[in-house]
């Protein structure tokens, strides 16, 4: 948090600095204006040129990403990405972070995060049909972790449940690296008609600008902006740093917007997110190539005595800005009145190319819009080269037995570790079945959630993934892996992976090592996207996640979306039956470096432990493997499918057993040491449960495709068995898996 500046409305060098603008940036502003900016104008430049709005540290790197593809209707640049899912249907989705607010006030921070991402989606004409959340908390033993977790989960549920959008999946990790910087990333997926997508370009001059939704208070006007002495005496204490979410109003806003969108009244629409009225009006004008005049007295206000500065920078929630076709005003007014929402005509589009603000009979701002975008800083921050990592060789010192433990204990340790143990305590607080189309969700413990397209026989599969353990060791491989894991999770359901969204959470980009992680993670993501023809259509960057110089583990979270064309042909983790064979697809080398086993059993998570290379992702093999699994699912050849991730073959088999209620017996039949075979995390692998008839055809076809495939065991009984390694009760182990989080939360 920035220090609170002295009260003054004069634009002094200190005030400029407190607004986060460099001297050079300030000079550009003066140059473009031909004069000095007033405080309102300075505030506007400051938020538009902030990291959050201008992407100044990341822009040049994000540019490298693959953003087009045969199903992409709209890539990055709008509120959310849009993909074509046939029959005139489109899916609109995005993921966004709300990390800092959630740390300050977990309930409201997380709730408004969910609210914000839903607005990004329905502002484009899509009804939200699914939410997901990717969460990272500190070490469970850290005194704050439990409260933060409880508050965040309560907030996500509190908002999503009320709005009536199912929260169908997500992921949750714990690590001391997040002790003071938790990550709350929310993803929303919406459904629209491909020819009824709404954009934010305010094309045309003389069109009325409407403000709708909730009224404006002094919410979230940040530290640097306390610089105006125009505030009345008590306005300081009336300026809450945390926004309170109002899911009820959001729900009304969705319904009202959907109703208005069904008419042809709207030219452009944009939600008011970060930097509220400022960024929404400027982005709409900039994209439409017009100017904008706003009459600030008409802005619906919750507080008295609000200044132009406050109104323009307020981050009050549940608000939208739109440009209507002249003559259609009354249609909008009637609809918003019906839903009991504030609605006001607050301005008009102009041909001046300027943002002009009027307040109390005076012009309080007059700035050209183009420079706000064109001249926005675009930094080329220096970054350091990656460290060379050693590969962890297998050897008897890694064998549980030579380490004085045994396989049963190892499995129990992994299954009850915070990252792996059941997250039921979390997802049971989310309404997962409202809207009536949730086919698979968190409760199966499966790979991707499956949500039917209402009234059809097709569905979308959705997943979020990132393994920070890998990214921290090697950001390039880790970035690749996160994309590949979503690809695998979607493939397991039989869905064709279509596109991803990303939420790139990193530390301070002014530090060379962090910037290096960031750049390489993007390169890794990009490599995977290109090889898999799996573009990025939306995303979000969250930098400066650090405390006292200590950055979070780099966490580029990926949200993947795929299409299941025929609901008679899909698969989940649940369907294994006694007597099925377990087939392992993909190459197994027993890679232990940076694995869960290495971290939890070999002690590689210690601060002073050496870092070993994470498992590399072979993108050619990845592609072939995913395509093959999808083909098998569509040919109804598999009973259940699951990818191998944390904890390798052993944990994949156990998760499948939990989901089906049947035990298994794994038989070790290769040259690898048993522990490496069971716990190695080689990438691009799948575990399939298949019946007698399918076993041989699956293996022989795989051979012709050069995909390694072997039978590794059978399903059945009530024990979890790996011959020569572990033998555990299914029921007891499942109970331990279920109990860790509730026991932790109740302690």
């Amino acid at each position, binding site marked *: 948090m920035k220090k609170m500046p002295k009260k003054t409305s004069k634009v002094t060098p200190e005030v400029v600095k407190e607004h986060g603008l460099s001297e050079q940036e300030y000079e550009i502003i003066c140059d473009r204006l031909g004069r000095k900016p007033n405080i309102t104008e300075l505030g506007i430049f400051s938020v538009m040129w902030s990291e959050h709005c201008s992407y100044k540290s990341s822009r040049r790197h994000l540019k490298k990403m693959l953003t087009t593809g045969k199903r992409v209707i709209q890539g990055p640049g709008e509120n959310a990405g849009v993909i074509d899912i046939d029959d005139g249907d489109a899916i609109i989705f995005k993921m966004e972070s709300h990390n800092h607010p959630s740390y300050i006030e977990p309930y*409201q921070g997380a709730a408004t995060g969910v609210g914000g991402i839903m607005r990004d989606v329905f502002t484009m004409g899509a009804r939200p049909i699914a939410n997901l959340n990717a969460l990272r908390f500190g070490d469970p033993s850290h005194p704050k972790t439990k409260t933060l977790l409880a508050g965040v989960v309560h907030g996500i549920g509190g908002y999503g449940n009320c709005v009536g959008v199912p929260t169908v999946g997500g992921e949750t990790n714990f690590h001391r690296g997040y002790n003071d910087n938790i990550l709350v990333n929310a993803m929303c997926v919406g459904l629209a008609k491909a020819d009824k997508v709404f954009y934010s370009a305010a094309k045309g001059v003389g069109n009325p600008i409407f403000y709708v939704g*909730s009224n404006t208070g002094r*919410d979230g006007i940040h530290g640097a902006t306390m610089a105006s002495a125009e505030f009345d005496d008590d306005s300081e*204490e009336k300026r*809450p740093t*945390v926004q*309170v979410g109002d899911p*009820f109003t959001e729900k009304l806003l969705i319904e009202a917007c959907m109703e208005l969108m069904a008419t042809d009244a709207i030219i452009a629409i944009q939600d008011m997110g970060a930097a509220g009225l400022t960024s929404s009006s400027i982005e709409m004008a900039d994209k439409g190539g017009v100017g904008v005049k706003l009459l600030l007295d008409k802005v619906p206000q919750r507080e008295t005595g609000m200044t132009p500065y406050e109104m323009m920078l307020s981050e009050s929630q549940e608000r939208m800005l739109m440009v209507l076709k002249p003559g259609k005003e009354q249609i909008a007014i009637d609809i918003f009145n019906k839903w009991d929402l504030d609605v006001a005509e607050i301005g008009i589009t102009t041909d001046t190319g300027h943002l002009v603000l009027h307040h109390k009979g005076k012009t309080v701002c007059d700035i050209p819009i183009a420079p706000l975008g064109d001249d926005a800083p675009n930094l080329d921050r220096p970054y350091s080269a990656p460290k060379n990592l050693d590969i962890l060789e297998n050897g008897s010192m890694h064998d549980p037995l030579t380490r004085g433990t045994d396989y049963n204990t190892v499995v129990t340790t992994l299954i009850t570790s915070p990252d792996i143990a059941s997250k039921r305590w979390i997802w049971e607080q989310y309404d997962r079945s409202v809207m009536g189309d949730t086919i698979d969700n968190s409760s199966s413990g499966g790979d991707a959630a499956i949500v039917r397209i209402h009234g059809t026989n097709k569905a979308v599969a959705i997943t979020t993934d990132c393994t920070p353990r890998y990214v921290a060791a090697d950001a390039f491989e880790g970035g690749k892996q996160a994309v590949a894991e979503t690809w695998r999770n979607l493939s397991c359901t039989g869905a064709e992976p279509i596109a991803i969204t990303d939420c790139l959470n990193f530390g301070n980009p002014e530090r060379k090592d962090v910037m290096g992680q960031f750049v390489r993670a993007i390169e890794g993501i990009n490599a995977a996207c290109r090889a898999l023809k799996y573009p990025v259509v939306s995303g979000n960057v969250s930098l400066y996640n650090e405390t006292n110089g200590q950055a979070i583990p780099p966490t580029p979270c990926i949200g993947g979306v795929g299409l299941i064309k025929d609901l008679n042909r899909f698969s989940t983790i649940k369907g294994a039956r006694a007597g099925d064979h377990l087939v392992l697809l993909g190459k197994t080398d027993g890679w232990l470096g940076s694995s869960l086993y290495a971290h939890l059993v070999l002690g590689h998570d210690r601060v002073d432990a050496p870092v070993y290379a994470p498992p590399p992702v072979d993108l050619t093999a990845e592609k072939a493997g995913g395509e093959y699994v999808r083909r098998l699912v569509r040919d109804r050849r598999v009973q259940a499918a699951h990818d191998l991730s944390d904890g390798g073959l052993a944990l994949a088999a156990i998760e499948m057993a939990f989901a089906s209620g049947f035990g298994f017996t794994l038989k070790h039949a290769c040259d690898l040491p048993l522990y490496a075979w069971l716990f190695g995390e080689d990438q691009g692998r799948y575990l399939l449960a298949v019946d007698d008839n399918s076993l041989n055809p699956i293996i022989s076809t795989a051979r012709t495709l050069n995909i390694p495939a072997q039978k590794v065991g059978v399903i059945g009984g009530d024990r979890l068995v790996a011959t020569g390694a572990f033998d555990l009760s299914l029921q007891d182990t499942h109970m331990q898996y279920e109990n860790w989080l509730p026991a932790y939360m109740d302690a």
Partner: protein
Amino acid sequence: MKAIIHIGLKPGVLDPQGRTIARSLSHMGFGSVTNARQGKTIELELDTQDAGQARIDVEKMCKQLLANVVIEDYQIEIIDEKAEEIPENTT
């Protein structure tokens, strides 16, 4: 000893519940209602004789659990059933 803690949203913090209540009352014909805010009270029974100590303790409880000081203000009332109420409010 008894403590009554009044917790309310800080001025300026959006109170969606209050707003909805105000609107509903006025829809129901109570036109005189111009605004509503909703807060909560927590009443604690304390097994102690020392009102001064009680206040110190309750103050701690508020900071640590009962109030969310980021968005809420609180006021403490200590009621000594034997003596009278002890005024002096803290925020």
